[in-house]
């Protein structure tokens, strides 16, 4: 076995009294793809920040050896100098600069401070070829989708003669096609001899590309698995991650489906800024009492646009169509009206559109239904406190009390607060947009249980998700949306990932008429 390219031994790091890393060991062999998995808060990001020098030498305990040398990084510049490049979950590109400007940002191809544009463009083109991105070097980054931006980040890393590439949840916001392409690229880079650390929640990706897996839990390494002998079962990984058997990833439920409650007919939406582009092209859908209905589709199919346009016309223009509740047409032209008619929309972007991060759990919980805790527009703090505390308990939000600020919570707990907010508005219909995005396995199960419970209480759930197993595991019926149209509808019993994919692919994914 080759000598490890990277060795981290006995890593410890704490923030005040909180131990983020208590004992992490990591050994990465040259030329492998090494996956690091663990629940949110397990210490993955902290570990990578230590490795890349964000937390400088002296702020942590433990030993880092890279290429046989002991390293004392004082900052990111030191680690980059040795060829350790990290690509963060939140991409760090400047949107209004071009691809080549971004790639050489801080490393401009210049002589005496004058940029040599030809050299930059030529080198950029070579790098883009390497990552398989067919765009002109002068294209502005803002015009690219997230998947392509990710490739630009990787090209940027390659421009720095990377020896160890670290990707922090690179596919969290990518659809399946783009994720697939990215995984292929990683395998290609591996063939070129680049070592890679991949942090991901998506076990299917990991089992596809990883050579070794290190599993972290509560700031410590709990297992290091070698995949070269054969694929490691997902169940084993999950068991290590959560520290308990997870017999079933989805809670059991016995659907009790009643009459049709929520109905949308001939819904058409045009693009928010380009009025001539039709994004939703005549969608009909219905949800019955106690039913969980899924909407599958690739990114860009119009799922979020559909949901948001129904919910108070929060997206798009020139919207037409009808919304019915219990057979009666309702007016959903503003979010207030939609909420008053019993519709709730849990956004896919909980930080950007779901929470007021600087405010506390209690404020966020009551925000969509302030009337319920107010008397003549004066907020009754006691009522608010008890309402927020009740949801905190029911949804098992882990915090000291309801006065903790949302920004300090983990992703899963933030999502529970967003759910609390919408449950407190007492909706009949919940539209859940990627309800488990960026949430660890344990918290996912809790969110699923909440969803199942809501359906059992007789509410209608419309669930949008990019993760097909999640839809198959939770839903009673699944619509497949592609290019603004429903191209298929399956009862849960008949649906499978292959069928859904086939429906998308055979309908002509690039139908942009």
């Amino acid at each position: 076995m080759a000598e490890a390219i990277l060795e981290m031994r006995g890593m410890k790091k704490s923030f005040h009294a909180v131990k983020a890393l208590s004992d992490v060991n990591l050994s990465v062999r040259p030329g492998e793809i090494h996956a690091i998995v663990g629940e949110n808060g397990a210490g993955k990001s902290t570990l990578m920040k230590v490795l890349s020098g964000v937390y400088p030498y002296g702020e942590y305990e433990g030993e880092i050896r890279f290429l046989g040398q002991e390293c004392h990084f004082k900052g990111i510049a030191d680690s980059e100098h040795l060829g350790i490049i990290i690509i963060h979950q939140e991409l760090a590109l400047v949107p209004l600069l071009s691809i080549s400007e971004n790639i050489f940002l801080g490393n401009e191809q210049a002589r005496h401070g004058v940029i040599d544009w030809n050299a930059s463009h030529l080198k950029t083109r070579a790098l883009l070829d390497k990552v398989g991105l067919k765009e002109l070097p002068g294209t502005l980054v803002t015009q690219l989708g997230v998947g392509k931006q990710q490739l630009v980040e990787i090209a940027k890393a390659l421009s720095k003669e990377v020896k160890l590439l670290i990707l922090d949840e690179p596919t969290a916001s990518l659809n399946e096609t783009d994720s697939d392409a990215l995984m292929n690229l990683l395998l290609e880079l591996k063939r070129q001899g680049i070592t890679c650390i991949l942090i991901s929640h998506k076990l299917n990706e990991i089992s596809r590309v990883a050579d070794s897996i290190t599993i972290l839990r509560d700031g410590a390494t709990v297992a290091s698995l070698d995949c070269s002998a054969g694929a490691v079962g997902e169940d084993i990984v999950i068991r290590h991650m959560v520290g308990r058997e997870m017999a079933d990833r989805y809670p059991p439920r016995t659907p009790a489906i009643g009459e049709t409650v929520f109905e949308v007919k001939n819904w058409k939406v045009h693009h928010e800024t380009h009025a001539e582009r039709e994004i939703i092209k005549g969608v009909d859908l219905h949800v019955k009492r106690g039913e969980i209905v899924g909407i599958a589709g690739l990114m860009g199919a119009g799922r979020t646009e559909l949901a948001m346009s129904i919910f108070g016309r929060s997206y798009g223009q020139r919207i037409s169509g009808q919304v019915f509740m219990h057979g009666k047409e309702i007016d959903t032209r503003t979010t207030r009206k939609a909420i008053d008619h019993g519709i709730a929309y849990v956004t896919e972007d909980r930080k950007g559109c779901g929470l007021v991060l600087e405010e506390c759990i209690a404020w966020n919980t009551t925000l969509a239904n302030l009337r319920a805790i107010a008397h003549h527009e004066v907020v009754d703090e006691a009522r608010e406190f008890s309402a927020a505390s009740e949801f905190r308990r029911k949804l098992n939000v882990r915090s000291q009390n309801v006065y903790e600020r949302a920004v300090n919570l983990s992703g899963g707990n933030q999502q529970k607060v967003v759910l609390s907010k919408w449950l407190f508005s007492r909706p009949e219909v919940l539209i859940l947009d990627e309800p488990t995005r960026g949430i660890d396995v344990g918290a996912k199960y809790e969110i699923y249980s909440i969803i199942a419970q809501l359906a059992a209480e007789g509410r209608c759930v419309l669930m949008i998700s990019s993760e097909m197993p999640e839809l198959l595991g939770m839903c009673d019926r699944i619509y497949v949306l592609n290019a603004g149209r429903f191209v298929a509808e399956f009862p849960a019993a008949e649906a499978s990932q292959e069928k859904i994919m086939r429906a998308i692919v055979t309908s002509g994914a690039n139908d942009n008429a």
Partner: protein
Amino acid sequence: MHSESHGPLSAVSAATEKELAARLDHAQFLKNNLREYGLLISLVVIMGFFEVMTDGTLLQPLNLTNLVLQNSYIIVMALGMLLVIVAGHIDLSVGSVSGFIGAVAAVLMVEYHVHFLLAGLICLVGGGVIGAAQGYWVAYHKVPAFIVTLAGMLVFKGLALAVLQGSSVGPFPPEFQLLSTGFIPDPFGGESLRITSFILGLAMALALVISKLRGHADRTKHGMETEPRALFIIKIAAFAAMITAFSYLLSTYRGLPNVLIVMLVLIAAYDFVTIRTTVGRRIYALGGNEKAARLSGINTERLSFLTFVNMGVLAALAGLIFAARLNTATPKAGVGFELDVIAACFIGGASASGGVGRVLGAVIGAFIMGVMNNGMSIMGIGIDYQQVIKGLVLLAAVCLDVYNKKK
């Protein structure tokens, strides 16, 4: 970390949780609320500093009265500005608007002999209309407030000049002047001590203590109190003592100024609205995360619009107070006020990115600026270095905020 049985919406399995079992100790609480206490402590320290440096002139009843009068219009505008800033906007036009409204008031009362109450009402409505005109572009057309109100600043500065035709107009009717120069009447006729004023001051202190105690008891009863009792008692005792001392000092001169009463009523009202009402909540949500607020059913556009209307009315009121104080409307009235008003809000802890800030913070911020102005003037520091020092204090206050946040 994970309990085995989830059933999140099922009946509560665990015993009633002690919500605040892990109650923070005093030091921790102080640390977390450093901003609030720190601000008040800074004001006291700054007052102490100037009290010493001016050989006791600062807290002399006459000077204290002047301090209130000099800062009243800034504080009135700071109340509105705080809402605008919390909502995520800014208003650069308030100085010009207050000057313009003062000019309109003068022309109405002096040249057209309109009754002072009617004229005052017209001016307040006019301020509201001006606020609406600017807020319309900001709220409904998403034009950045900085630009809209920069335009407004030029427009109303120019209009003030036009209305006054370049000269000063005055004097105002005596009844109108009372707004700024009057004191509350004293039927007991105490010469050395204005008894009504002092009693009113005591009553205010008492009211404050009672309402705070009630709130504390209520929160404790529901297990929601996070502030340690000892700190709470020290805080309200200090507040009550300060109000009592302040009103005593003022009472030994001419009593409480009318404008102080106007100010206090407004401060109390705005504090209540921002902290306790749904409207206040919504403004904080709007500034904190506009998208989240809109998706939570809040009419964010109307709310932004209304903060500007409110700002316009308060700018008009400030214009009236200032005009009444000078007893003339001059073309230079209001010039630069916006800077003091905005500085007061930021010193008071408001965040330039919106969503953060308290009414009482802005008021204390205004007083910090006021005490520095006043103290430095008494010390004979020229207007040149006064500006330098004020600028540095503003920078320091905001840097401290940023630093605290990072920690």
